[in-house]
């Protein structure tokens, strides 16, 4: 009994501590209206805080969604004609809008969509709960904070935000400049600090151990390799590269190890990491090859690809033939992913699929 009481007290103590940590994060956000010019990337942090990457404004917003779980978190999802639905809500037709990003709030299992207009600036965020109900995340008078990327004031220069992920107390942001061709991965502290806008980290990768390029990252995901937090990045020029997070220090030049080469014509879109039968896999949506399931077995020991490679070099992967026309992908829970895919009639649907 005594042990149980002690245990409960300890548990309460932990809860109080966790509560105070939350209060710190929440107190950094101030009520304001967020006016999005665009929304090209989303990421969730602790406490359902949503990060929104606005490329057109070269700004990243953090907003408190106050998201609550609705419906059964294990239930399947199927929202047909999601593009028509959000277009209707925005007073437009599906061709006048685009769903530019999709992320699951891991705390609630609700799916968030970033939608932007094709004609002129403007974007909105939508929440799809587990009953399939679609509502707008009102950005008026919402607890929020923002950080503007450096050089946003340059007249013609723009920094396109392609992918974001939160880890511990930092937001990693991959972007692409509309002028210089360089890898610009930023590591931003959160709560945001005006003094630290996240110095760019130069990331290089080799090809066959010979040619080294500072190519931009298209998408990335964070995961543990033998207890070491790693960033697995897919480059615009196709290699898949592993970089230890601890090496990502502002101002440093970091060289990643190429662990797989995806081959011709692929543009990686989204990646998720999951476990199945005691093994870790990466599921990647790709413009040309559909969805790929990549084995990570031995990734820590994977020798960087250093010589001419066959089609399936480095980590082994297979194409998930059931999944076609997948445009966005995220992990819904331990056993399911959610995909945004286009159907035969060209309309888009949001659908849960079992992790393969």
């Amino acid at each position: 009994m005594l042990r149980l009481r002690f245990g409960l007290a300890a548990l309460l103590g932990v809860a109080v501590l966790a509560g105070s940590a939350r209060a710190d994060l929440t107190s950094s956000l101030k009520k304001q209206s967020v006016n999005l010019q665009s929304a090209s990337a989303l990421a969730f942090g602790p406490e359902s805080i949503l990060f929104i990457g606005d490329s057109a404004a070269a700004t990243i917003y953090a907003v408190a969604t106050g998201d609550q779980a609705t419906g059964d978190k294990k239930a399947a999802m199927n929202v047909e004609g999601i593009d028509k639905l959000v277009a209707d809500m925005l007073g437009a037709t599906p061709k006048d809008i685009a769903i530019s990003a999709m992320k699951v709030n891991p705390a609630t299992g609700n799916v968030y969509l970033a939608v932007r207009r094709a004609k002129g600036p403007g974007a909105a965020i939508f929440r799809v709960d587990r009953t399939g109900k679609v509502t707008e995340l009102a950005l008026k008078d919402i607890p929020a904070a923002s950080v503007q990327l450096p050089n946003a004031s340059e007249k013609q220069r723009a920094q396109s935000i392609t992918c974001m992920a939160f880890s511990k107390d930092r937001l990693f942001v991959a972007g692409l400049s509309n002028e210089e061709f360089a890898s610009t991965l930023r590591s931003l502290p959160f709560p945001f600090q005006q003094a630290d806008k996240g110095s760019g980290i130069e990331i290089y990768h080799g090809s066959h151990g010979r040619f080294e390029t500072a190519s931009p990252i298209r998408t990335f995901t964070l995961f543990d390799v033998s207890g070491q937090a790693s960033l697995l990045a897919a480059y615009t020029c196709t290699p898949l590269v592993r970089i230890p997070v601890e090496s990502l220090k502002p101002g440093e030049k970091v060289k990643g190890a190429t662990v797989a080469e995806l081959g011709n014509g692929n543009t990686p879109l989204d990646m998720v990491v999951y476990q199945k039968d005691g093994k870790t896999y990466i599921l990647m949506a790709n413009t040309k090859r559909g969805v790929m399931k990549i084995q990570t077995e031995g990734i820590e020991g994977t020798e960087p690809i250093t010589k001419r490679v066959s089609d399936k070099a480095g980590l082994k992967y297979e194409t998930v033939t059931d999944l076609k026309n997948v445009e966005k992908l995220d992990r819904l829970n331990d056993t399911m992913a959610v995909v945004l895919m286009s159907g035969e009639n060209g309309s888009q649907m949001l659908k849960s699929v079992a992790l393969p």
Partner: protein
Amino acid sequence: MFPVFLKPAGGARAFRWALFLFAVLPALAAADTPALRWQPATKSQPCRVELNGLDSVLLAQLRDQPPKDWSNLLAVFVGDSRTPILGNYTVGKASLLFEPRFPFNPGLKYRALFTPASGPKVELEFTIPQPTVTAATVVEQVYPSADKLPENLLKFYLHFSASMSWGQAYSRVHLLDADGKEVERPFLELEQELWDPSGRRLTLFIHPGRIKRGLKPREELGPVLQEGKSYTLVVDSTWPDTDGNPLQKRFTKEFKVEVPDETQPDPKKWALRAPAAGERKPLTVRFPKPLDHALLQRMLWIVDKSEKRLDGQVRIGEQEKSWSFTPAQEWKPGEYRLVVDTALEDFAGNSVARPFEVDEFHAVQKEVKAKTMELPFSVR
């Protein structure tokens, strides 16, 4: 004329509403007939929907206790959709106003519906007229402007005379070979599309996986551009600008492809022509090879002896082979420096700091660690 009721909101609130409506019924009876109309956009406000003919007491009630879901009372839909359009509701002096989250699309059919708790519904179908098609937007310039380009060319900049719609770039720009056959997926296709903030300049990267040596895309398909061959860059006239108007005409740029350029720009080889003191003539810098048009605008500048950056006008010369700077004030005699950001690139992405790709087996290329380089000059 008929009384206007609101749908019950539920619970105690509904009771209050019912009581209120009962109390104000006589006043409502005096109200005009509710009527819907749409107001065209003006310079200061976008197009909106107006509900008139509501009693002033009811308007005051709506102002003081706004309903949780306005769309139960007044909703606007796209065509036959049953999903209300998002927007803001404002209670005016004599009307209820709906302003959509984003402007209504000209040419699209909309339906506004006022649903009182009792009495007939009021409905209005409307279409914002399409503005007259005026195909006035043109491709003003494409950089690089030269008609001879290296095989490893990294990007094109397309400059338009007005802001363009988003989401169609990769289907409206084509690269044709000498036989008029389209080169397969030559550009890096990014969902975000690389526009400048005004929407008037698009950056198109040639797929880097087909430029960089040793990668599968290049091994399988070969480079996008091949030395000795001719190509045409085509921009479709059907590409709409943000007003929905097509381009005035199709744009083409023909060019011939030369040897790949694997050398870094070397500021030590640039020719500076210093102006004379007491005049506002430009300082001119000539490059042995052309450099990136966009980066030249901001990666070269001039400082005086006290490190103060000079204000003035930058001009990029023909075929991006020169850069000139006309100061805002007359040149004063003294020592100056041209500062070069080492991230400045040539047409193939080779920067002053490092080549596009470093061949680690043949380290003939050099890496410059410094962020800037300086070229001194005197004004006499």
